[in-house]
């Protein structure tokens, strides 16, 4: 166990509280930099998706985790970023410019969404953002002169400094990683400055925030704009990674996946966005694996328990039929959300903190450390 003696205000401000952090994050960065030369191309592709999802996760954390404004419309922001990139690329705009333009446009639209959202709270805000997402989806399908409608748009590999960067090259991965790292550092900077504290203040008590001189409306719009802009940047990378985009990729299901990213990762820390992104990206191949191999395995178990060849084949076909049911993935996502909310509201990062504390305090760890205290005195009058 390490005790930190603070001797300077700088101790509370710096990003790495002590040298141990520098070592572990340095190691992590080294591993991530070596990864493309070690991992298979399939895993590399998954890792790129982890970077993109984590970037969106950080964006959503700013809005939902820190400012307390729920959103089920982030797939739409991602779509706006992706389509801006695809559209501008048609006119030979260079990558850095359309990358920035996509972020700027998405941020602007985010701010515009933020304005009507000022008067909405909780479930009503969720419904408003869902409607926004549906509107965007519909516009993408109908505005054929720009978006090419339901036929979708192709997007060529980006060229950086005159060099084309294919979507499965290590350079593209480094690009995604750089965007993620810059997003995280920027967000951490924001959180240790007045704006970040204003966000948290709005989340916990709008009345108190207002009486401390925070312009609640302005900061909510700022939060929407920042979150949307980051998602727009991620959208450009998303489009390049897929090389083809169409409206049905940016559905409610994708927005729900982003919510799962932060819910499962943990809504109180940026670590949560990354852990949640790893979870959501890796669950797909895992489910495919289950779908392909589970019927055979279950049939094998049935056979060893004396079901007979006919019975085993019967079981196998039934399990296979169940595994290929439509909407099974959505149901599994639903179950995962419910289980996390019930049993681990702090998410994967909360679980990690508990495990860490268990070993730090070894025989003295108490479960109650993380138990929430019930607060009975809470005014609801000045909402």
């Amino acid at each position: 166990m390490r005790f930190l003696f603070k001797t300077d205000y700088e101790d509370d401000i710096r990003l790495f509280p002590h040298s141990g952090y520098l070592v572990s994050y340095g190691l992590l960065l080294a591993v991530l930099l070596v990864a493309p030369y070690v991992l298979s191309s399939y895993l590399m592709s998954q890792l790129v998706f982890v970077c993109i999802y984590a970037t969106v996760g950080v964006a959503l954390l700013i809005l939902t985790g820190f400012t307390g404004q729920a959103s089920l419309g982030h797939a739409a922001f991602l779509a706006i970023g992706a389509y801006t990139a695809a559209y501008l690329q048609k006119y030979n705009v260079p990558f850095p410019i359309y990358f920035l333009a996509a972020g700027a446009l998405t941020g602007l639209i985010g701010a515009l969404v933020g304005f009507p959202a000022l008067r909405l709270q909780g479930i009503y805000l969720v419904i408003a953002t869902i409607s926004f997402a549906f509107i965007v989806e519909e516009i993408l399908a109908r505005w054929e002169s720009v978006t090419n409608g339901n036929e979708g748009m192709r997007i060529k590999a980006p060229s950086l400094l005159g060099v084309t960067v294919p979507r499965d090259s290590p350079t593209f991965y480094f690009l995604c990683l750089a965007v993620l790292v810059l997003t995280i550092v920027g967000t951490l900077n924001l959180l240790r400055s007045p704006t970040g504290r204003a966000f948290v203040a709005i989340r916990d008590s709008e009345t108190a925030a207002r009486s401390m001189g925070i312009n609640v409306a302005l900061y909510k719009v700022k939060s929407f704009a920042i979150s949307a802009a980051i998602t727009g940047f991620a959208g450009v990378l998303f489009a390049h990674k897929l090389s083809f985009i169409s409206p049905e990729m940016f559905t409610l299901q994708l927005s729900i996946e982003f919510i799962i990213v932060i819910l499962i990762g943990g809504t109180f820390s940026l670590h949560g966005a990354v852990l949640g992104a790893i979870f959501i990206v890796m669950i797909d191949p895992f489910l495919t694996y289950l779908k392909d191999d589970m019927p055979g395995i279950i049939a094998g178990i049935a056979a060893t328990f004396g079901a007979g060849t006919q019975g085993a084949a019967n079981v196998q076909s039934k399990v296979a039929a169940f595994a290929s049911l439509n909407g099974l993935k959505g149901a599994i996502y639903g179950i995962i959300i419910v289980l996390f909310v019930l049993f681990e509201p702090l998410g994967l990062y909360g679980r990690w903190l508990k495990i860490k504390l268990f070993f730090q305090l070894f025989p003295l760890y108490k479960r109650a450390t993380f138990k929430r205290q019930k607060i009975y005195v809470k005014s609801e009058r000045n909402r």
Partner: protein
Amino acid sequence: MSYFRAENLSLHFGGLKAVDAVSFAVEKGEILSIIGPNGAGKSSIFNLISRIYRPTSGRIFFEDQDITEQPPYDIARLGIARTFQNIELFENATVLSNLLVGRHRHSTTQLWQELLFLPSVRANEKLHRRRVEQVIEFLDLEPYRDKLISGLPYGVRKVIELARALCSEPKLILLDEPSSGLNVEETDDMSFWIRDMKSELGVTVLMVEHDMSLVNRVSDRVIALNYGRVLAMGSPTDVQQHPDVVAAYLGA
């Protein structure tokens, strides 16, 4: 001209007159207490000043400026800070970041500077920290500096709310029942701090309070309210002996 002035302030909810044509003035550097039975309109007056409610009629002046139409967040920027009767702290943040939010009206940095955490932001943060540290020392909050609010006892939270208000370096501070829920010892501390705020920090205090011993100890003047109207105004002892006030409390 008075430092702070409310003129014919009224707040009507339909037929209910929560505040009815109340006028009073606060002089610079004094401690003025508002007393009255439950539902007399004391907290409503505070909510009118901090613009949580919009007055039905009447005007509010601070430093000769009409602040009746100012948006709520501008009230704090003008130098009026407040605490809440039922504690409105930022539950899931540390004491330190709660107090730093109190510094919000003094922050001058722009969003893009904060994203990059430029040296100017860092310098500003250090300045804020130094000021917050002075308040922490003033109110003896050192043991709680890095604790989360959600794990702290009620009495400490009450002090943290006062600290957050002080961190904004207010000219006028509104205290909504500073001693409610505190034990005798904590109330004693509170009375010393209120007096020190006036003498050491030069803050003008307007306070709503039920605890008469605290009112007597700290107030320079007292206003008694009932049914949204002013019953009496003057020194603590005068007001408490005023026949209308006695009648309002004892129902004679």
